[in-house]
């Protein structure tokens, strides 16, 4: 079984530095990789979840999108 990684901290980081709809913006940017993994995330679902566990390639894609949109480096 693939190791899963929590992307919730990345979204929290992005919300601290990005615009109000940063979560939706990240989801738009990462849509192809989400679809490839048959994952349909929403901002509301992410907000309501304590942990959002995903495969490594989604984690990496979300991290890159968040850093690109905020122009900051995610240290977590």
């Amino acid at each position, binding site marked *: 079984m693939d190791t899963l990684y929590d992307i919730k901290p990345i979204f929290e980081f992005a919300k601290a530095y990005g615009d*109000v709809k940063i979560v*939706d*913006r990240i*989801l*738009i940017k990462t849509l192809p990789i989400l679809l490839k993994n048959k994952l349909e995330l929403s901002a509301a679902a992410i907000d309501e979840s304590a942990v959002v566990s995903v495969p490594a390639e989604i984690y990496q894609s979300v991290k890159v999108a968040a850093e690109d949109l905020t122009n900051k480096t995610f240290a977590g």
Partner: protein
Amino acid sequence: MFDINDYAFDEDHNFLEVAGEAMIFHCHHYLANLLKTILDADYIDSRPFLVGSAADAVYNQLSCLCDGLDETESKKMAEDVYKCFGYGLINLSGMDENGVDLTTSKSFFSKTWQIKFEKSAKPIDYYTVGFLAAVYAVIYGKSLAEIDAEQTRCMACGDDLNHFSIRSGKGNFTTYPKKAATVFKEVPKVKIGWEHEDTITKAFGGAHANFVGNEEGFIQVFGVYIVRIQSDFVNRAQFEFVKAMSEMAGEYGVTLAGELLMESGHACGFFTYGGIMTSREWEAGVKPYLQTKEDWIKGLLSLINTMGWGYHTVLELSEERAVFRNYNDFEDLSYIRMYGTSDYPIHWANSGGFTGLMQLVYNTDIVHGEKIETEEGFRNMRRSKVGYKTVMTKGISCGDDFLEVEIYL
């Protein structure tokens, strides 16, 4: 040569048409946000429809405006229109049968992108690319399908000028079939139901004609830059984006796109309406009639009904919940002209605008003169308050008689 006063405002439908094209105002917050949303989805080849949407609308309009004019007069007409509508300045003297290489340092899109965002990695003035392609097609009798148009330098990327190249070729943007004429939904309107509505609407009637480009070709009013833009350009851009998202991810794609399209309208409503509500014109012409926060919203609706976005009204209104309507809203009329009917509401900009208005009046202290003008201030305010939810319940393109939207905490 071009004079906006030659075109009568349709008071029955709160609508303005210039040479066959419905015209609306949009602010830089809305347009930059919209463009960024579309470009962020970099797996969608959006350039062809962004340029094509502009080229189609401008071609239709300039074909009418330049009818009977010679080459020199037509160039002057196109330059005048570009400046009057607030897109900046262009000099078409170098355009001939072979096309044009054109530079300008006055571009609404490139200038305002830099106000909102970091530098762009690629040129973003797609509108002017389409505009110039349309000018070339109209003046030299070309088909849009046989024009190669591109922007090679852009101030939004850090260049000192914008550079555009227009040539005959195989065509490098999308062209569209002829669209239908505007059909208004003729139904009785529920009025705003506020004793001062007619006074304010009458006082600001015709004021839209004052919003014309200055010596730099920009329209800066109410603390924002605005353009008078072809409704079908901007709406086709958002509809084509949603279509691409739908093809890629079905309903999920539409929902994701809709959230951000609505956010563009939200930012527009918040900043532009905020600018209006802190303007001298508001102070003198509207504020004397305002007692409650609800009056502020009704006063704003009474004023903006003179701007060509349809007839805005409100059925229920409190801090907790509101139901807004728009009769003959510009997004639905546009959708019907170009695509016919829709399975779901498509009036994201209007609905986001209503939400921005609620946010502005109930979640800031604007009624006491507090003004939030910065992106940071906007973001902090949104994060510190409980946000409004927005549900688009009815749309003319869905077969309803009007646009309706519910906004609640």
